[in-house]
């Protein structure tokens, strides 16, 4: 049994990005360029402190305690409070750890491209992290909902950053989808409250067959699904590829760190902590959810094959990969749930590697399309980037020695445990499709001859392009780090207690199987 302890740590962890955002605003000065460095050091410091605070909570959680911090009670049932449990910590860990790396990367990316409105960018970035970590630590649906909307509002500015017609269009599309989904989520929250009188996340659920008629529970679940459009499940995914017009670190944030992860995080919360495994299986909702997820997995991969723009291809890959996480919990089995939980950080690390590589290709080589990338991985071009990309791609396909293998392994075990071998086939087909769309990129980058555009001048280079400009190092080093960690996680999945936390969370849900 877990012991709930009052603690200030959750608030401290959330306060880091919030204070950082305020400081960024305070340091704003349109002319003084020294302030820019101050602004960036602020972001980095805050991200490191936040990461350490989040990490320091892990041993406490693993001892079986849960940290709670009550913020305020508006009315009975409407309580804003933070509570950190094992699963929440997993998401908080993912966000805070990747924030450090993405911040470093953003410095290189934004400065190298001389982007406008960088202060707004870093401010909104900090705000988005604030919202994401707050969601991870929410004790109940109400708190979760509020930060869900905060996340939408803050990331809008990042998506529409360029301010041209295309960016504004995709920003509007982004808002239309996500705010509408927020409406559904709110309705679902209110309904849940009306049915049960509480909205707390409790392992194995607060709803039961006694709360309402089965059809009401089914409709409620549909509302929750519509409310969690951030998970980009099909057919409500099209905002995600459109949002690719954003600067690449933002895409990385959307895909790996905060936004879509918040969506799948919500799915796991709803399935395991609002409905509960027993209710899900007695209503037959697990099968429906697993079918939708399978559909998204396969169709997402198919759509990815046709994309020439690297970022769009990655976007469809994300859509497919996110459904693995939804799929894992929908299996309603012990191993499936572990698989989906660890896929949150693992997919985060792999996908961020891929996106950071895509961004580096844009900045350093000026290439956005896969077809332009012939020979880009060769010596004198961008070998480090492309090696990191290869590692990420292998991980996406679920092959060792990258951490994607571990999570897929658990998912496969989960399908067998749930007694649904047909879904094992789905995972294998989807993985195969992953190979189909990632392999050509690697082949083009390493084995095709570069296009002779500059009269062979490129051939003579000995120094890699990646070290030409010190700013590029800000981009290459983070992506190398994430790639290395993706490999480390495969051999030592207990690094940063990831697997321990997932096992603890799942054993709480299943009552210690």
């Amino acid at each position, binding site marked *: 049994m877990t012991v709930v302890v009052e603690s200030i740590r959750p608030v401290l962890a959330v306060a880091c990005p919030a204070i950082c955002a305020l400081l960024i605003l305070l340091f704003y000065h349109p002319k003084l360029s020294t302030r820019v460095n101050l602004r960036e050091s602020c972001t980095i410091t805050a991200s490191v402190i936040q990461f350490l605070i989040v990490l320091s909570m892990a041993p406490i959680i693993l001892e079986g305690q849960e940290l709670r911090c009550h913020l*305020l009670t*508006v009315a009975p049932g409407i309580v804003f409070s933070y509570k950190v449990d094992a699963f929440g910590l997993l998401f908080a860990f993912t966000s805070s750890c990747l924030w450090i790396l993405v911040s470093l990367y953003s410095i290189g990316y934004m400065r190298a491209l001389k982007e406008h409105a960088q202060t707004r960018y870093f401010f909104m970035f900090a705000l988005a992290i604030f919202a994401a970590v707050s969601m991870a630590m929410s004790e109940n649906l109400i708190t979760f909902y509020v930060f869900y*909307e905060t996340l939408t509002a803050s990331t809008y500015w990042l998506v529409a950053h360029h301010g041209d017609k295309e960016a504004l269009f995709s920003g509007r599309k982004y808002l239309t989808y996500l705010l509408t989904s927020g*409406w559904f989520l*709110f309705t679902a929250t209110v309904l849940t409250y009306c049915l049960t009188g509480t909205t707390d996340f409790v392992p194995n659920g607060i709803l039961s067959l006694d709360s309402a008629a089965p059809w009401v529970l089914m409709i409620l679940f549909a509302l929750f699904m519509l409310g969690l459009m951030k998970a980009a499940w099909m057919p409500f995914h099209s905002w995600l590829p459109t949002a690719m017009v954003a600067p690449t670190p933002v895409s990385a944030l959307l895909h790996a760190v905060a936004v879509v992860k918040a969506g799948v995080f919500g799915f796991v919360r709803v399935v395991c902590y609002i409905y509960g495994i027993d209710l899900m299986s007695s209503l037959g909702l697990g099968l429906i959810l697993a079918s939708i997820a399978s559909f998204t997995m396969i169709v997402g991969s198919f759509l990815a094959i046709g994309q020439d723009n690297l970022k769009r291809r990655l976007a469809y890959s994300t859509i497919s990969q996110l459904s693995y996480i939804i799929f894992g919990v929908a299996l309603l089995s012990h191993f499936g749930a572990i698989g989906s939980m660890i896929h949150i950080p693992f997919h985060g690390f792999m996908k961020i590697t891929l996106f950071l590589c895509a961004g580096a290709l844009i900045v350093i080589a000026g290439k956005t399309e896969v077809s332009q990338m012939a020979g880009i991985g060769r010596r004198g071009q961008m070998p480090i980037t492309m090696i990191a990309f290869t590692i990420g791609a292998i991980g996406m396909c679920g092959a060792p020695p990258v951490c994607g293998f571990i999570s897929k392994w658990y998912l496969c075990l989960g399908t067998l445990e749930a007694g649904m071998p047909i879904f094992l086939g789905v995972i294998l087909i989807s993985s195969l499709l992953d190979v189909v769309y990632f392999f050509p990129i690697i082949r083009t980058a390493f084995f095709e001859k570069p296009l002779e555009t500059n009269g062979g001048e490129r051939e003579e280079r000995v120094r890699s392009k990646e070290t030409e400009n010190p700013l590029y190092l800000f981009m290459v080093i983070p992506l190398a780090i994430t790639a290395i960690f993706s490999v480390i996680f495969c051999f030592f999945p207990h690094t940063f207690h990831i697997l321990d936390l997932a096992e603890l969370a799942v054993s709480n849900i299943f009552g210690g199987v």
Partner: protein
Amino acid sequence: MLPIEQFPVLVVAISLLSAITILLAGVINKKSCFFISLATITFQFILSIFILRHVLTVGTIHYWLGGWRPPWGIEYVVDTLNAYVLIIILFLSLLAAIYSKRSVEHEIEARKLPTFYTLFQILVTGLAGVVVTGDMFNLYVFLEIASLAGYALIAAAGGRALRASYNYLILGALGVCFFLLGIGFLYSVTGTLNMADLRILLPALYGNKAVQAAFVFFFIGLGIKSAFFPLHTWQPDAYTYAPSAISVIISTAMAKASIYALIRVIFSVFTVDFITLFPIFDIISWVAAIAMIFGSILAIAQFDLKRMLAYSSIANIGYIMLGVGLSTSTTLGLTPALMHILNHALMKGCLFMAACAFIYKADLRDIRDLVGLARKMPYTCFAFLLAALSMIGFPPSVGFVTKLYLILAALDAGKYIFVAVIFFSTLLMIVYFWHVIEIMYIRTEEKGEKEISVTEVPMSMFIPGLVLAFLCFIVGIIWLIGTPLPIMDAINSGLGLGVVVP
């Protein structure tokens, strides 16, 4: 009698005297007008704080004008509701006065300054009078004083404002006449004009057709004054073409005073017992729901920023009236409506200040001309941004608090449809506010578009806006923590609300 018990009459009398002083001082020195007005309103505001403190600690203040006993003489009664609204009105008037200094110099000829400030001060007198009085006829008089000053002030901008003012004059006069007619009806059956007296005498006459007709007249009259849909037709033009400082004060203080009068008449003169005899509040709730949607949809269709804000006001009056309409069927009582009176005043005041600042600098009325303005007028735009976010209902702003409490009230009353209406109107609000934010903050100038060269407005114009913008969030947090809720409870229990009538 304690000196503090004379403050209500002091608030009105000083203001009236000051109006005359301004007119005389203007002959000698035109610059002094502003300072006299500012000093008076500041003093009034300080008095109102003392009044609230006294009302909360000691109890309701009764002041008999000239020492005449109530049924015959005029009585000023200040309970928690009055004191609360009085502070809001005077605070907004104060900020509008500070804001007016530079904007009026820009918009109005120097020779007209003394008259302008005289009228401004008379307007404040009227609004304060409406709030403190406990006598129906006196309420009518102050309403008329405020309205007449309002017509003249709107017309002060000249040009299209003349027509807007004339429309307002006709409809406003009609509204006030309705109100007077209602008073006449009540007087004919009860023989008294004192509110407390009416409250005692009326219950026996609830079946009387004259009393029922009087209620309808009051409702229509004050509905016109507060621009409650569908009686709002004067409002968009008046808000759009009025001089800057006047847009600010009529959209906040004046609208709120009319709503206060409506609430006072409904709950203090007539009572909850009378209202529950008829399905009045169901009708009000539904009309308010239509207003919320209708105002927002029309706001989306506007290109003129001030006009957009005016339609947004119609939607927000709908929010307040929805709170009123739900008040008898929820234990929250009038709390959501009263919250939104303050909240909307803060938000709309800030938005109008920003919108008028754009006009002040470069005559930017059209939303589409605001491209990239955030870099050129950072403080004003930031204030606008905060207030717009607050309007949308971004936590923990005041707009969020209102919506939260309205939703709680609707759930408590079991009228789930209004939850959907609130959400739908919120989505519409996002559409029109986000459109402006997008243009100001995100859109970059395209090639060939003319570059607008503007700089930040003077400090006296952006500071009040920023103060309101920050208050939108600070007050929101204060509401959420629940510090002022005892005031709300006091008001509710004073009006016989907060208990669900089956």
